């Protein structure tokens, strides 16, 4: 760690990991509810568990992004953070607001929560991923603004690198597009239209910039490859991401009541969205191949390469699978969507956050890299989580293909619930893969406590 203010990243990373654990617990609960319908009923119904699972995912990724920015920006700009105090204050605000929201979901009926938190003043709740009460949404905006202020002021007084500019651009974009979560027109078509401006333009737009910047930062550090080379790649990746991803939003406008030309626009532009993800894969391997040094933190290199591969598989391959209008006509909203959602979120954003945590955590704890034993443990966690996620994806894809076939393609289509009974076996297998995933997660937690001789930090 080169700047003392980088240490504010530590609580952000710890909170991220803590909430990750919560997310997976609720994922498992739902995995069981899929096959044992009344599990935990009426205490935690499926819809509540689902809300907690997905919201925790988003919130812990945001914690990860913010921690990453607090760690990376001082080092890139070569100056202390503008205000470490503000960063810590915002940490607590965000954590408490997040915890209160989750408790709200779990303890009171959703409609009561809505009444309690001013949904009658401005109705924003009740939409997937954007379920947060109005108060929480306002809190998120305040935290985001304070965070961006802090980071931008740091940038202004320091060195401006391409990595930090791309990161900042992505983070500002994240905040700006979140504002559309406050816009909830009564017309359902318009509602959905702008809902995607948050959801799609996040994961297939501005978050890609954040991801590329984080990956580039870690790759520079662990490979020692020239900054100029990495910067060229960054330019190419972000241009490709924006050229394809912006109009690519159209792949969600096929059947929601929008004009027909979206079927063409959405299909054509989104079909090219895998390219920036592919470029990131090539980028990661290329940099590691050209590396000038052997960094003692082998685990971080593994996470970085894993991000490249899994993001391309999850977003690029599984995204392309159902992105053309004639295919999506059959697969829309099926288990194929869930398969893609899991692998894309895991491969791109979960892994990139775990990559930077893997690189930064030892430094934050005062050493260049963890002990051999601890790294081996961490790598086991990588493989357990990654392989089980591949299986979750494969089982859901199999379930999805059968579902589409029996329910939508067949000459004698079966009703929804009857089809669900037919594919229950795959849901069981998904559950077991989820159990393995949790074992991987526990292994990951353990790796932080494995003792051993660690590589000392050489302060130049």
């Amino acid at each position, binding site marked *: 760690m080169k700047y003392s203010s980088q240490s504010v990243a530590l609580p952000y990373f710890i909170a991220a990991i803590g909430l990750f654990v919560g997310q997976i617990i609720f994922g498992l609960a739902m995995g069981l509810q899929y096959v044992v319908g009344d599990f935990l009923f009426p205490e935690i119904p499926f819809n509540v568990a689902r809300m907690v699972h997905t919201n925790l995912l988003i919130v812990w990724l945001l914690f990860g992004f913010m921690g990453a920015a607090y760690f990376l920006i001082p080092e890139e700009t070569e100056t202390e953070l503008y205000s470490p105090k503000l960063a810590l204050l915002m940490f607590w605000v965000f954590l408490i607001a997040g915890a209160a929201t989750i408790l709200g979901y779990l303890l009171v009926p959703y409609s009561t929560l809505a009444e309690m938190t001013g949904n009658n003043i401005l109705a924003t709740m009740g939409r997937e991923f954007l379920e947060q009460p109005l108060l929480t949404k306002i809190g998120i905006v305040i935290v985001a603004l304070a965070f961006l202020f802090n980071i931008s002021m740091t940038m202004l007084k320091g060195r401006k690198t391409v990595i930090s500019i791309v990161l900042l651009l992505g983070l500002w974009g994240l905040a700006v597009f979140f504002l559309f979560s406050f816009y909830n027109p009564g017309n359902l078509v318009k509602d959905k239209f702008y809902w995607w401006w948050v959801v799609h333009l996040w994961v297939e737009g501005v978050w890609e910039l954040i991801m590329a910047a984080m990956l580039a930062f870690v790759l520079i550090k662990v490979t020692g490859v020239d900054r100029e080379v990495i910067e*060229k790649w960054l*330019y*190419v990746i972000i*241009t*490709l991401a924006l*050229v*394809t991803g912006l109009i690519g939003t159209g792949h969600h406008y096929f059947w929601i009541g929008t*004009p*027909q*030309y979206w079927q*063409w*626009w959405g*299909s*054509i*532009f989104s*079909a*090219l969205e895998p*390219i920036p993800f592919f470029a990131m894969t090539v980028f990661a*391997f290329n940099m*590691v*191949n*050209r*590396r*000038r*040094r*052997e960094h003692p933190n*082998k685990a971080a*290199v*593994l996470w970085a*390469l894993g991000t490249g591969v899994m993001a391309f598989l999850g977003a690029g391959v599984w995204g392309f699978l159902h992105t053309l209008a004639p295919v999506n006509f059959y697969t829309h909203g099926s288990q194929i969507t869930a398969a893609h959602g899991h692998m894309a979120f895991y491969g791109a954003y979960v892994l990139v956050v775990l990559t930077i945590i893997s690189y930064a955590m030892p430094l934050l704890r005062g050493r260049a890299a963890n002990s*051999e034993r601890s*790294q*081996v443990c961490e*790598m*086991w966690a*990588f*493989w357990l989580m990654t392989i089980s996620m591949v299986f979750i994806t494969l089982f859901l894809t199999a379930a999805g293909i059968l579902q589409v076939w029996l329910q939508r393609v067949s000459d004698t289509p079966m009703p929804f619930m009857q089809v669900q009974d037919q594919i229950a076996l795959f849901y069981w297998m998904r559950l077991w893969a989820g159990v393995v995933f949790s074992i991987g997660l526990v292994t990951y937690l353990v790796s932080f406590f494995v003792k051993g001789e660690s590589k000392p930090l050489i302060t130049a």
Partner: protein
Amino acid sequence: MNTCAQTLMPSLPVQAPAPAAAVRHLPGDLAIWVFIFAELLVFGVFFITYAFARSNNVELFNAEQLALDRTSGAVNTVLLLTSSFLVVRAVQFAQAGESRRAAPWLAGAFACGGGFVVVKLFEYAEKIAAGVSLSSSTFHMFYLSLTFFHFMHVILGMVILVAMWNGARNGRYGPDNMNGIETGAAYWHMVDLVWLILFPLIYVMR
């Protein structure tokens, strides 16, 4: 001691830094070529989709194609070809170390681009008045999307031409500083090239 860690890691050998050996000259920056490639890919996919859509509905496409304004399309083709030629001249002057003399040629190229924009706007105004819209037919969808997507590229290209013109006037380019002007020129030729495919495909070919 590293054995265990190595079994968990794909092993990739460390490479010596590449020797700065003789590299073939690529005009302009590598990044612009990757960008151009991506752009051509988007247009390419668009063109192929058009061909598919057309083959499913040849009569309708032919009838509506006939209603397009081929004269203005041809004028625009001439304008873009001329402007590409002017840019080539400008690059030659820069190569000869006469950066300032490149400037008027770039201004000329910009003027041709401006002419293209004006002609196109008149064409759009007429079509829209005639009820052509993105939703009026599949052919119109392609006609408007493709030409407008290209139109936006012309505008971006003109912005780049202004930057090049400014650089040329300030004497920035010369035989040992060709990167900027070649990069911009490559982009402008791409814009021209796409039109040379688009025009026959949408306006003429039946």
